[in-house]
């Protein structure tokens, strides 16, 4: 009887130890998601028109996986406007909306002296209230890029990102063709789409939620 109890106890201890061992690796690899919010503000320069579009002020919300450096997030951009001269003299003004189509996804790398960031944001760009020579033109409510605009941004080479203080994120992107812009579709597609558009965003004041 004593032998049996002793064996049983040893067996239970072994099972307990096994369970601990089995659980330990899971705990060690558990994801640690840290939500961080930053202030964000910047500009985008449209290559073909040479015009600037204000980006923000807004809030960049990220969920950082502290175990891997990967993050996802959201960078909602308030409606803004842009103004440029078509064919050198024709004043064109339009409201611009960036509609998020997917979460911002990125990665933070620790190397050398700095933490570097690379991320991609995805939007549909919508144009509305298009005015030529100050006269409203009918563009419809669905004047937008045919496909998603993918905007890769990152810290500049050798320039770091402070996880609390933030940093500067820059990048360049391509604007695809527009559709559903009524009589403006041709003009817009002549003037706006193309590569070499730049984005420059200052991210600051990180708050760990």
């Amino acid at each position, binding site marked *: 009887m004593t032998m049996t109890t002793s064996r049983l106890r040893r067996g239970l201890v072994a099972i307990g130890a096994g369970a601990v061992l089995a659980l330990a690796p899971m705990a060690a690899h558990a994801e640690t998601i840290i939500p961080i919010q930053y202030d964000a503000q910047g500009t985008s320069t449209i290559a073909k028109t040479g015009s600037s579009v204000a980006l923000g002020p807004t809030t960049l919300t990220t969920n950082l996986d502290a175990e891997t450096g990967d993050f996802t997030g959201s960078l909602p951009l308030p409606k803004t406007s842009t103004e440029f001269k078509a064919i050198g003299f024709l004043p064109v003004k339009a409201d611009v909306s960036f509609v998020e189509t997917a979460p911002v996804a990125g990665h933070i790398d*620790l190397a050398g002296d700095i933490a570097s960031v690379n991320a991609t944001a995805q939007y549909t760009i919508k144009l509305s209230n298009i005015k030529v020579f100050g006269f409203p033109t009918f563009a419809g409510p669905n004047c937008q890029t045919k496909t998603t605009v993918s905007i890769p941004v990152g810290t500049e080479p050798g320039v770091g990102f402070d996880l609390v203080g933030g940093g500067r994120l820059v990048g360049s992107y391509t604007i695809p063709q527009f559709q559903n812009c009524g009589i403006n579709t041709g003009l817009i597609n002549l003037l706006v789409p193309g590569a070499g558009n730049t984005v420059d965003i200052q991210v600051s004041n990180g708050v760990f939620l």
Partner: protein
Amino acid sequence: MKLRHLAAGAATVGLIALSGPAFAAGPPYTVAVGGSTSGTQTVTASSTGTVQFSAKNNAGTIVNMNCTSVSGSGTVTKGSGLTQIATINSTTWVGCRIPGGAATVTQNGIWNITGTGSTATAGTSDSVAGYVGSADASVALTSSPSLCSFTVTGHADGTFNEATQQLVINETGYSGDLTLSSVGPCLGQLQNGNPANMITTLNISTGGAGAINLS
């Protein structure tokens, strides 16, 4: 054959005798402060510049962690037959950063300075090799929660220069003398066991009690 061995042995002895300074001694040492060889002497230390600290992660990437300065206090043991020359009782680290932000560095326990070099003479211009032993410090990114913290333990090689009264810490090569432990989470980019380097130069002051000399 035997003659050849004898000749080779004699040549080796000759080389050894020529390569070291006259009357040079290795550990244990006689440690004097201002000529005194009894009791203990409180000393302070301050870095002449930045403290360069770096770790090599499992992927072979070097991650730098620097401080603008470090200062500290300790005790030199005077007397003869000594290998452990001094202790570092406390340190204050200023302006520390690891990639991603500001960091704090906290000394754990008491560190020691132990001599290993065989170049100590009665002269006052020896550079004696040694190491900072029992080194143990906690490093943490100041974010809350901290996205990166770890402990550095081991020893850092260095040299005490009698002429300048400087302790030159020059732990290089990621030899594993210093290693990281209790790493977490550090974005998964530092791991337990990562070797570390450390480079800094410390001015050692005895507060007017005179120069430290090893012989």
